[in-house]
């Protein structure tokens, strides 16, 4: 695609005060988990023209995903999410370089997954994997944009120690949750878009509004609360020197 078409594609967003398309073009973002959260953030980061999207998920699309995972359609059922997501995102914006990693996140794979990225977006559905990602984010000093949903509720936060606390400041490992988690489409959609917004701001050098804060979104009462999350001096991860 020529330079002219590229300019045309982004012509509306470059009018936004403070926007820096070149910075976005040079950036790599990792999205771990291509479910309801990851679908929303991936679509909008690709649409905005991020340089490279690293997509990580080892699941296949199921019919019960389709109420909220907007990257997929009926014909995607049974296919690997990274492949289907890759197809959809490439069709949306061929200028974005896509790395499709059909990899299970664990303590052995996480190091390679985060390598070279500027920001990590959490699209996960369990706390154990989130702690692994949080730990690696702390170790490599790459900001971690947390997202989680349940029913009408959605949370988002931007963790970047030592500037802020981390996920382990807030929650303890080993928590269980009901399976399947009740969720409908707009809640992870809303949170995924907040995560994408914060990622774009960070990449462009604009201070993320969720730095050291937790957004609590309640779709039932349509409330948005911001809770300051200070560093926990007893955090088992980020309080250690």
């Amino acid at each position: 695609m020529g330079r002219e078409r590229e300019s045309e594609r982004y012509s509306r967003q470059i009018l936004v005060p403070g926007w820096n398309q070149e910075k976005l073009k040079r950036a790599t973002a990792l999205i771990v988990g291509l479910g309801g959260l990851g679908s929303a953030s991936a679509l909008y980061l690709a649409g905005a023209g991020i340089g490279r999207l690293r997509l990580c998920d080892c699941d296949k699309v199921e019919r019960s995903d389709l109420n909220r995972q907007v990257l997929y359609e009926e014909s995607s059922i049974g296919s690997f999410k990274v492949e289907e997501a890759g197809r959809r995102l490439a069709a949306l914006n061929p200028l974005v370089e896509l790395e499709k990693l059909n990899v299970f996140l664990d303590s052995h794979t996480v190091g390679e997954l985060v390598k070279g990225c500027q920001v990590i977006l959490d699209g996960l559905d369990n706390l154990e994997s989130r702690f692994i990602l949080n730990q690696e984010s702390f170790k490599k000093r790459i900001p971690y944009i947390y997202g989680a949903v349940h029913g009408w509720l959605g949370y988002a936060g931007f963790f970047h120690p030592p500037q802020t606390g981390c996920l382990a400041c807030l929650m303890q490992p080993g928590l269980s949750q009901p399976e399947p988690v009740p969720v409908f489409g707009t809640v992870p959609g809303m949170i995924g878009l907040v995560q994408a917004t914060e990622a774009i701001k960070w990449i462009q050098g604009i201070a993320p509004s969720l730095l050291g804060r937790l957004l609590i979104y309640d779709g039932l009462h349509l409330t948005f609360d911001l809770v300051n999350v200070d560093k926990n001096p007893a955090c088992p991860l980020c309080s250690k020197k």
Partner: protein
Amino acid sequence: MHIKVKFLAYFRDLFQSREKIIALPEGARLRQLLGSLCDSAERHKAVFGKEESLSPHIVIMKNGVPVQNSGGLDAALENGDVIAIFPFIGGG
């Protein structure tokens, strides 16, 4: 002393309040505060886990600092402290 408690997410429905000011004797700890708030079986179950420990499914912050690793139910309270309570969620 007086402690401000902020309820977030579905705890607002459970406690039928966004915010409460609770009067407690000097030297009271978080356990007493939560005990006075949890005046029904449903509220008690949402806040306390096994053997009267803090449920792992909630997050409680004192003046912006999570209490989970720093004192838990035995965290000391002072006049003017702000306690925020919300549930842990983990879906994606």
